[in-house]
C-alpha cells in the first residue's frame, strides 16, 4: 500500500517535516514547489508509517485503500506526478 494526498491539500509542509523517508514532494525551495497545486507522495518510496496523516492539519492524506470515493483519482495522480515531473528538477534544489 501507500498513503496518498488528495486535492484538499493546502501545501502546509507539516507532512514533509515528519516524513522519515522524504517521499513527499515537491519540497519548499524545489523549482516546481511554487507552481505545484498540492504535495504528492511517491508510492514507490512511502513506507506506510502514518506520520504524515497525523501531521496534516486538513486531513488531506489517506491510506490508498481508505481514500474516500470522491478522491478516487488521487492514487493515480500521486503516481503520475512522480512519473511526469522531472526527478532532476526536483532533486536539483
Amino acid at each position, binding site marked *: 500500500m501507500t498513503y496518498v494526498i488528495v*486535492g*484538499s*491539500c*493546502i*501545501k*502546509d*509542509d507539516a507532512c514533509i517535516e515528519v516524513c522519515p523517508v522524504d517521499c513527499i514532494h515537491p519540497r*519548499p525551495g524545489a523549482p*516546481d514547489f*511554487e*507552481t*505545484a*497545486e*498540492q504535495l504528492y507522495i511517491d508510492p514507490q518510496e512511502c513506507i506506510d508509517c502514518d506520520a504524515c496523516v497525523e501531521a496534516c*492539519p*486538513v*486531513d*488531506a492524506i489517506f491510506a490508498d485503500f481508505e481514500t474516500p470515493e*470522491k478522491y478516487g*483519482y488521487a492514487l493515480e*495522480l500521486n503516481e*503520475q*506526478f512522480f512519473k*511526469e*515531473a522531472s526527478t532532476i528538477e526536483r532533486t536539483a534544489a
Partner: protein
Amino acid sequence: MAGVGPRVAIVGAGPAGAFAAACLLRACGNAEIDLFERLPTPWGLLRGGVAPDHQEIKRLDDAFDRQTLRRGCRFFGNVQVGVDVSHAELMRHYSAVIYATGAQTDKSLGIAGEDLPGSWAATEFVAWYNGHPDYRELQFDLSARRAVVIGNGNVAADVVRMLTLSAAELERTDVADHALEALRESRIEEVIVLGRRGPAQAAFTSTELRELGALDGVDTRVDPDDLVLDAVSQHWLAEQGTFTARKNVELLREFAARPARPDARRRIELRFLSSPVQIRGSARVDAIDVRRNEIVRADDGSLRARAVDGDIETIDCGLVLRSVGYRAVPLPDVPFDERHFVLPNERGRVLTPAGEPLHGVYAVGWIKRGPTGILGTNKRDAEETVSRLVEDLDAAALPQPPNPEREQIDALLAERKPDLITVEGWRAIDGHELESGRNAERPRVKLASREELLVAAGVAQQR
C-alpha cells in the same frame, strides 16, 4: 527582564496572521502576542473566503486555534487598527507590529457597464455567501436564466459551484442563511465561464477543475474547438507546462468528449480565449459583449492574450461576476507601494520610502507579497518574516516601547472599544454557531450580522 519575551501585535487574524503567530511562538516561546482583527471573528478568508462546500479545508481553524489562542496568544476582535487605535499607538505599546491585513478589495475590468446593477466582483458574492457581516445586505438578483463568470482562477471556480450546487447540497454546508435562502430560489440554469487565455493557461488547480466536472446533475461543457491548442501553447505545454496545466488540458478534453446531458439540472460552459469588452443594459445587466483572443508570446517570454479582429459576440445574461484578482489597500500611517499594492518590504521588514527598515514593523501574507499562493504558502511566508523579527530581536534592534505592560494596552482598548471581543467572546460565538449547526445537521450556522455576533459574544445587548 529575564523571562519576558517581546510584545508583538499582529494586525489581521487571517491565515497569514495566524501562521505568523504560530511560527513566532515556535521560534520564541515567551513572545507575548496580541492578534488584532477588524471583524468580531478570527481566521479571515478561512471563514470568509474558502467556499462553504470545502469544509475539509476550513478544518484548518483547529490547527490555528491550537497553535495560537490555546498557546496564550490574545485575540482583540472588532478593533480596526487605523480607526480605533492608531499605528503610532501600537508602536507605543509593542516592540514589534506585524501587518497581516491581506488584500481587501478587488481589481476591476475597466470596461463600460461594469458598474451596472447585476455586475459584481466575485469577492463580494463570496463574502456575502460566507456570512461576512459587512456584505449581508447585498441583494444578488438570481432571477435570470444565465450568469457569466469572468476569470479562470479558483475564486471563479468557487462561485461557479455555489451558483450550480443544489439546495440539498448547500444545506449541508455552512453557507450563510441569507445566501442559502436566495440560492434556493435561484433561477439560474446556465453559467458561462470566460477565460482570457487558452485552456493550457487556465489558472484553475486541476482539483477545482475536476470538481466542476463532477457536480451532481450539472452538465459541464467545453467546446472541442476551444481545445485545439495553438502552436505557441502546444510548445509551451510540452516544454514548460506545469503538471497542473497538463492535467487541466487532459480534464478539459475529457469534459469535451462527454455526450451532452439535456436532462441536467444546470449547465456550466467553459469558454476560453474570450475577453469581455462591455456589459450592456439600461437599468441593469442584460448582456455582455465578448471578443475573441489569440495567444502570443510577449517579449518577456510570458504568454499573453491578444485581441483578434472580428465579430463581437453578445451573450444575454442577468448576472456578471468578475473574478480577476484581489488588491490590497493602503493602511493609515504606514508606507505603501502604490505600484505593487503591498507594504514595501525586504523579506518581511517594512521599509521607509527611502528604503531603510522601519524598525519594529513587519508584513506577512498578501499585504507583503501580493495576492498569490494558497493557504500553506503563508506558512513559509510567515517563517521568513518571523526570522527577520527574531534576528532584530537578537540584535537588540527592536524599539523599546514606552508603555510595554499588558495592562496599558488593555486600558486603552477598554476605553476605546467597550465592545471589544476577546478570546472568550469568540469562543461564545463559535460555540453558539456550532451548536446551531448540530441542531440543523450542518457543520455550522453562521451569525452573519455584526449585531448578532456582538450579542453572542456577550459584548452587546439584543436590540
